[in-house]
């Protein structure tokens, strides 16, 4: 009988502690599988955020370092300085990266830090229990926007990929989705592209994963996937926002 699922070399053989239907597992696997395919698992150092993925090292079978809320890009900047020939990445959620850690991510991108940030955008704080994130959509309910997020009160959601695209140091930025097999296949290509560009030493690389949080959204996993496609993608369009050739052309002008 052909197995439908096997642990990859980059995944620790353990039970997941993520909620049923959560897309963290998919993102973890895409990252570690790509590193494995590139022969880089033993040369990689990952930085985990604060949030549900704080224990990413329980699942990703590589050297890892926890970091304080939002500070992962600063931590990765330090690691990269000590090991300029290793592969370094941060893995951060939207509360961590787009709220408390805005200074760190913006300046790491501006410096053109040669690591990759994987940004999990699921429009909500997961671990703390479903509060409004900077990425929470207008009208979206959360435990701190119980009648739905209002623009007058909380402003509009931050489009991080677009924001970082304004910085010269960010050479590769792509927003992908984890909501369907086709999306996931494309997401893996983006992960690989980011690591390849990091290896070339061209600058800061960034992949935003549109993700789900069925638990805090109060939706069944299939409905959560549908909600992502119907609501998130229109506001957060998929696609490549920065790529090295275009950045080089800009620099030449």
């Amino acid at each position, binding site marked *: 009988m052909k197995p439908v699922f096997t642990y990859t070399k980059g995944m620790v053989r353990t039970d997941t502690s993520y909620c049923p239907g959560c897309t963290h597992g998919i993102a973890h696997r895409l990252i570690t599988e790509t590193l494995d395919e590139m022969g880089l698992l*033993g040369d990689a150092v990952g930085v985990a955020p604060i949030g549900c993925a704080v224990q990413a090292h329980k699942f990703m079978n590589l050297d890892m370092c926890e970091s304080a809320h939002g500070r992962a890009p600063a931590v990765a900047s330090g690691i990269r300085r000590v090991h300029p020939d290793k592969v370094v990445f941060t893995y951060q959620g939207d509360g961590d990266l787009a709220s408390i850690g805005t200074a760190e991510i913006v300046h790491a991108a501006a410096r053109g830090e040669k690591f990759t940030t994987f940004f999990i955008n699921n429009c909500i704080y997961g671990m703390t229990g479903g509060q409004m994130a900077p990425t929470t959509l207008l009208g979206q309910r959360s435990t701190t926007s119980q009648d739905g997020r209002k623009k007058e009160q909380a402003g509009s959601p931050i489009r991080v990929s677009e924001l970082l695209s304004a910085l010269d140091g960010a050479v590769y930025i792509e927003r992908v989705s984890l909501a369907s097999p086709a999306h996931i296949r494309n997401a893996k290509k983006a992960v690989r592209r980011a690591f390849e560009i990091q290896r070339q030493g061209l600058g800061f690389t960034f992949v935003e994963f549109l993700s789900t949080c069925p638990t805090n959204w109060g939706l069944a996993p299939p409905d959560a996937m549908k909600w992502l496609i119907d609501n998130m993608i229109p506001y957060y369009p998929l696609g490549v926002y920065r790529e090295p050739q275009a950045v080089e052309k800009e620099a030449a002008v």
Partner: protein
Amino acid sequence: MSSNNKSNSQNEKVLLKGNEAFAEAAIRGGLRFYFGYPITPQSEIPEFMSRELPKRGGVFLQAESELGAINMAYGAGAAGGAVFISSSSPGIALMQEGMSFLCSAEVPLVALNVSRGGPGIGGIQPGQADYFQTTRGGGNGDYKIPVFAPASIQEAIDLIYEAAELADKWRNPIMIFADGIMGQMMEPVSLPEQRPFIEAGDIRKAKPWAATGYGEDASKRSIVKSLRMQPDELEAHVEKLFEKYARAEKELVRVETRDLDDADIVLVAFGTVARIAREAIDILAERGIKAGLIRPISLWPFPYATFDEIGARTKAVISAELSMGQMLEDVKIGVGKRLPVRLIHRTGGMIPTSLELADSAEKIYIESGGTGFNNILINNTGLQPGRRSGDKEVL
């Protein structure tokens, strides 16, 4: 003036400004990585590092904030790098978030506080009101950081150089507590030899716990972490840390003393204030009062046991500090109920002169039952009775 950046033999003296000396000592100690952010009165340190570190094979990175700097330091330290950071009081306050993480994850670091007056943005003149922040742990949770307070540029150099080794040995941040006077003053010093920087490829062997990429054997992967969701696991971890701190309390106490066995009064002071106290002690001697000195060099662990050496003759113990009385609490613990403990302080960036310190100490001595015969001596030494340096400006 052209500063001398060439390597110096052990005994050749060079004249260095405090801030530059601190930075030079860090580089020579083998601290290859520096992350910093400008703040008065220590901005010469990032300036010096930006100029010197890259050409000597090290790395300088200007962070976006002190939060950025301490977290870069945490990352570099977690990856096995030897790291130095510096800041001043409000910047050190921001760094406390990271200090807590470093202590829990047992990541080495040498940190320098060129402290200034507070609270809030306070001022840019020297202060010691970060004593609690530094010795009690300014961040969350149970942890300790060994703190050394030099009183001369040479001592600062020696302590920073040694701290580079201690940080690795104890797998803990080590803090150097200087003040704005020390940062700006110049003194002739001899510099220690350059310790070799550890190459990236050698880190895994020297620090198997560091996150460097596991290489060939995934079973030996490193996780640098502080999260422990299970209470029993976290308790066991904190207990383990405190076993280490208990050893540090035995091994890291540093103190200078003078005439404790037959002193009329004992002054306790650290850093620049201890030097002012030494001069005050000379003034008091001219007035017939013998003052002893306890100069804690390690603020944590505090030299409590040294207070047992105070002899029967002593009438009072005085904590002299640039704060509203923070070290005072440790002095009280050290003295216990044996003797009255009093405070002489200035704050906000004001610094007592040696004369002011001597006058206040004399007053306390007399209030504590000391004999007042020394007024005669005051006249004999040409000092005017009743002259109080409070009217005098500190230069």
